[in-house]
């Protein structure tokens, strides 16, 4: 089940619950696509209530990242729990995403970008 919140300050927050796996990843991916299509390409995925991610869930996150970045935005992650963090690290995806400990930090990263770290990353994932 996915709960979606909209932050007034212009950053969309999507908060999946429980497992992000073959059964739930499809819905998650669609929600992300909808957000980007609606022009909300600054997205934070709050994973603090996700206790498990498998390769399908990771693929959904990566596709969300590509969609957001190709719309001059970004998908950033917040609140990775222990086991989920381990899975990101062993698949090396912790280097592909900007990951923050808490939701406020992730939202802050979009809104208060300095010249050294613009909110829109220059690199784009190869398709």
């Amino acid at each position, binding site marked *: 089940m996915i709960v979606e919140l909209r932050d007034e300050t212009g950053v969309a927050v999507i908060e999946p619950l429980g497992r992000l*796996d073959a059964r739930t990843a499809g819905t998650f991916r669609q929600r992300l696509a909808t957000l980007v299509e609606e022009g909300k390409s600054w997205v934070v995925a709050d994973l603090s209530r996700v206790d*498990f991610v*498998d*390769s399908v869930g990771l693929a959904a996150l990566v596709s969300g990242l590509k969609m957001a970045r190709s719309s001059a935005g970004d998908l950033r992650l917040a609140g990775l729990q*222990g*086991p*989920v*963090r*381990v*899975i990101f*690290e*062993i*698949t*090396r995806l912790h280097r592909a995403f900007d990951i923050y400990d808490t939701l406020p930090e992730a939202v802050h990263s979009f809104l208060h970008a300095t010249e050294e770290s613009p909110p829109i990353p220059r690199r784009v994932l190869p398709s």
Partner: protein
Amino acid sequence: MKAMILAAGVGSRLSPITGDTPKPMLPVANKPVMEHTIEMLVRAGITEIKANLHHLPHLVEQHFGNGRRWGANLSYSLESTLLGTAGAVKRVQRFFDDTFVVLVGDSLWDIDVAAVVAYHKACNAAVTVVVKPMPQEMVGRFGVARVDDDGRILQFQEKPRPEEACGNLVSTGFYVLEPSVLDLIPQAEFFDFARDLFPKLLERGLPFYAYCYEGPWSDIGAFSEYYQVHQEILSGSYSRLHLPAREVAPGIRLGHHTRIHPHANIQPPVMIGDYCRIARGAVVGPNTVVGPHSVVDEEARVAHSVVGAHTYIGRLLELERCLAYGRWVVRFDCGTSAYIEDDVLLSHIRGRPGGQIWSRAADLGISTLALIGGLPIFFGLGVVARLTRQPTIERTWRLAPVPGQRLPSGAPRMRPVQLLRFSPHGAVGKLAERLGVSRLPALYNVMRGDISLVGIKPMTEEEAASVSEDWLRHVGQAPAGFTGLWRIQGGDDLPLEETLAVDAYYAASKSLWNDLRILLWAATRRKR
């Protein structure tokens, strides 16, 4: 001289790894830790060894047996309720008739056992404890001793606060005792050496001495310690350990039959077990131990890590300071564990691949032959079906365990299979029932690989739901089968509880030979 190994610990701090592995069987440098202990004792001439067991005792007994493989005479004391370190020794009091050694089965020392015993005898001690100096802030996890200049223990504290500790010598769980001391231990009660027995020794002024040991010592109670002991072994600190690998280059130890791609990158110090395969572009090491029968696939990187046996490390996977054991990845520094469900990332390679291929080939071959041999029957039944225009084949849904895959709880993963059989609603089915061949179409499922030729009974959803996870764990070790012990014992007429018991027995004693015998019995339709 005799010895006792305390191997009854549950190892809760090493959960989830110790869920289906008892602590003495945890691999250290690709050998169960208790194997190192037994070898150390045998090298010192101590061959009569008793081990107490509690958690998953059958796995320990299965591996060690009577200890003859290591030159020891090993026997066991099975504790259904834990009796503590001293209580366990008291239980087998009659085994010890002279000075004896007691040590914990989940620690490693690089010690000269004979020297400790000689010291004990020279001091005329009743009990000698091997102690090691430790930094003050770490003493709180152990028993701490304060000694005089002769080594006699004046005070002993169990897990004191660092500021209240009386010294910095901690007990390493290695004791030498005189049999008379056992009289101080009450029968059949929980009694601990450090907490209960040592205070009594001090009270009565019995000669209680400490042997100061300064070499490497590891008690693998936590993940950080598990990692540290491997680092120390790889760096050569443990000079007396017998490692199951050959040093082919400085710092690189390999087992036999291991294949390493010329474009793989092996960085010492590293130890790779037997029958492993390291693929192109893989980086293994530094400070890494890979268990036997494991595969590190292309471009994967395993550094400062320990990989268990029979483990597949998927392509591009990166393990840094992790333990990969079965389907679990555990970070050494924080102890966080993650269960990996995707086979492409990490999986358990069940058994030797060769064995599974033969078993599948046999299933495929025999079922194909049987189907071909049964063609006349199928033809005849087909004609009858044509004439009567009634349903012939029906599919029923059953659940079968997926071999080698387990849920985090330890229960086997079940998947639905559609088994074919002759429909009892048609004339064909009724005829087939009369001939006793109504389940023959399921051979097609065997050909497809949905089920095996011989196995446990495929369960219905209701049956699977009503079975407890513990039962499923025993039963689900074997695949579902077209026939099996269950069929010989009564087939569908057998009540569920009896079917489960028969299947659990079958799964525990599964072998190719047993399967062939069951097949012969079933084919000749003899009921036991």
